[in-house]
């Protein structure tokens, strides 16, 4: 609304059409270096894709199994056979679980910061949440191993005892709980800042008129949020969640440290040795890998690259659509 104004006010500053302007060298240099930077991003992205593809080809051509549908990962020996099915499943499962845990909490924090907290507390809280994003993932991994693991064990036991009839909570409960659910909880904490930050921005952009109209109709604050803020921010929250998903998909160290890997496709969240993510597999296998194994790992990396690209593009698409119908 108001954002469409500025371009028009700049109009008079531009030279009248039809007259050639003398371009200063500084302008030219800046314009071209900016253009170069823009092009460079595309070139780098394309180069990464080409690099992954070229490096992955030797393993893909030697592969005895089906790369996309096999669950086994044995890229060494005379008959290398490997597939990413279980890895893709594990990667998506960990990321989606993290999202399911993190999104409600993030929306709550964002609403508190944007609509409930006193202004001074709100800015402090926003700052702290942003700081969470600056913590290295290894630290989250250490936190997961040394603090979270002992605390979460009894909780998992309880889940299994009282909700064990639901298949996903079936036993035996792993001890120590190095399971996909623990990894997802660590991931959830890691993606909390980005989801919160984007959601907060969206909620703050709710037109004041809408909010005041709701209040004027006699709505309580919660009803106002439900009627005005949440509908306005829905697509923003979705795109925030997608950005979080992108981060959770590529997370390596924390998962490698917290999870006991396995290559199965199932939903037993409390059992160890059932799931593995692509990023963690690469981190664990790379140091001692032979040439062919490295190539196979890069092929897995290519798949991860593709998944992350699709997720992020979907997030962008939703963001841009939101812009269209709010303006």
């Amino acid at each position: 609304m108001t954002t469409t104004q500025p371009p028009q006010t700049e109009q008079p500053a531009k030279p009248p059409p039809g007259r050639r302007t003398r371009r200063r060298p500084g302008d030219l240099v800046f314009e071209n270096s900016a253009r170069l930077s823009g092009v460079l991003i595309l070139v780098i992205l394309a180069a990464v894709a080409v690099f992954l593809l070229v490096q992955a080809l030797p393993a893909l051509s030697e592969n005895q199994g089906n790369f996309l549908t096999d669950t086994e990962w044995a890229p060494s020996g005379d008959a290398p056979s490997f597939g990413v099915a279980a890895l893709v499943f594990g990667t998506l499962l960990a990321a989606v679980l993290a999202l399911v845990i993190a999104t409600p909490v993030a929306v709550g924090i964002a609403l508190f910061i944007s609509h409930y907290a006193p202004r001074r507390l709100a800015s402090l809280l926003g700052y702290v949440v942003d700081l969470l994003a600056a913590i290295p993932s290894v630290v989250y991994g250490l936190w997961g191993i040394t603090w979270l693991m002992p605390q979460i064990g009894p909780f998992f036991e309880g889940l299994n005892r009282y909700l064990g009839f639901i298949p996903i909570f079936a036993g035996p409960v792993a001890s120590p709980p190095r399971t996909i659910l623990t990894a997802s909880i660590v991931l959830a904490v890691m993606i909390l800042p980005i989801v919160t930050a984007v959601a907060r921005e969206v909620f703050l952009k709710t037109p004041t008129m809408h909010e005041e109209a709701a209040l004027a109709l006699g709505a309580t604050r919660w009803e106002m949020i439900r009627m005005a803020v949440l509908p306005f921010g829905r697509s923003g929250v979705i795109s925030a969640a997608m950005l979080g998903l992108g981060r959770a998909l590529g997370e390596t160290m924390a998962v490698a440290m917290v999870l006991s890997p396995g290559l199965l496709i199932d939903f037993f969240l409390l059992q160890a040795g059932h799931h593995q993510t692509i990023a963690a597999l690469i981190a664990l296998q790379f140091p001692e890998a032979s040439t062919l194994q490295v190539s196979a790992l890069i092929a897995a990396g290519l798949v991860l690259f593709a998944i992350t690209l699709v997720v992020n593009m979907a997030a962008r698409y939703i963001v841009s659509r939101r812009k269209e119908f709010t303006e």
Partner: protein
Amino acid sequence: MKLSKYGKFAGVALAGALALSACGGDPEPAGGGSASPAALPEGVECAPGTLNAGGATSQELAMNAWRSAYQSACPDATVNYDPTGSGAGRTNFADGAIALAGSDAVMDAEEQAAADERCGGQAVHLPLYISPIAVIFNLEGVDELNLSPEVIAGIFNQEITNWNDEAIAADNPDAELPDLEITPVNRSDESGTTENFVAYLSAVAPDAWPHEVSGDWPSELSSQSGQGSAGVVTTVQGGNGTIGYVDASQVAANDLSSARVGVGEEFVEFSPEAAAAIVDSSPAAEGVAEGDLAIELDYTTEEAGVYPIVLISYEIICTSYENAEEGALVQSFVSYLASEDGQQVAATEAGSAPISETTRENVMAVLEGLGA
């Protein structure tokens, strides 16, 4: 927790004390080498030049300690070690890119031929880094455990799943074994420790351990695992009823309980001497030339006092070098590695088991011909 902290502190203090005493010089400084700040052991003399070495990552810690000790004693010498992995180390050695290769495995016939050609004579394996692998467990109320090879294989293959299993009770008549599920823990990354442990299992209990020997844990077993030795230790400590395998250096540092392993009729507790003894009791590897010290680890040995689960890493060198200076440096450096001081440094820094006197004599005999 506190104990282990103190343990670590003591380890650091010990290492520091050793380093200091090394700086302080040996009791007989009267000789000619008064200029060198840290003396090499008797019979080992400095040689100038640059030695490029590379290979197994398992030796990296020990090699770093050896290099820094040797270089501080011999300011004119530079030793580089590139931890590229055993396979790459052997290839680079055969190509002539490096003069010494570290390798966890004995060269096959093809590699040996290429290496011999590179040496213009003979390339030999010297077993200078012995790293015992301990079977650790965390079981409330049980501090000592006897495990026969078949039982270890059964546990890790998830055939024996409860601590009160008769097979375990038979070897431990005095222990009160709880009715508790066994949680076996393995390495989640590819490692030489896994490869040697698995090689042991398939040698001593082929029926109970049907899986292929590889640095990767068999993926058909859904199991608990940890990244690196430290990851295995935290996982074993984090649960009750857990059992895992780990470099023996971790046992003392983390105050862990380690199992006695069945050898013949008796059960042997891990100790540096017992681990080093397997080198003496194992036969030479098949098809190696005279003077080569490559061995075929005899996991099934029934000799008394031998601890069979070890990782052995070799130094591969030529018996003669075209470049006399290079030969002299290799001789000097490797003599230091084999010396009591050198082995002690590795034991302190990397937790390896010092080689036995017999092995040392054999290594020195090989080195004698070098550099002449």
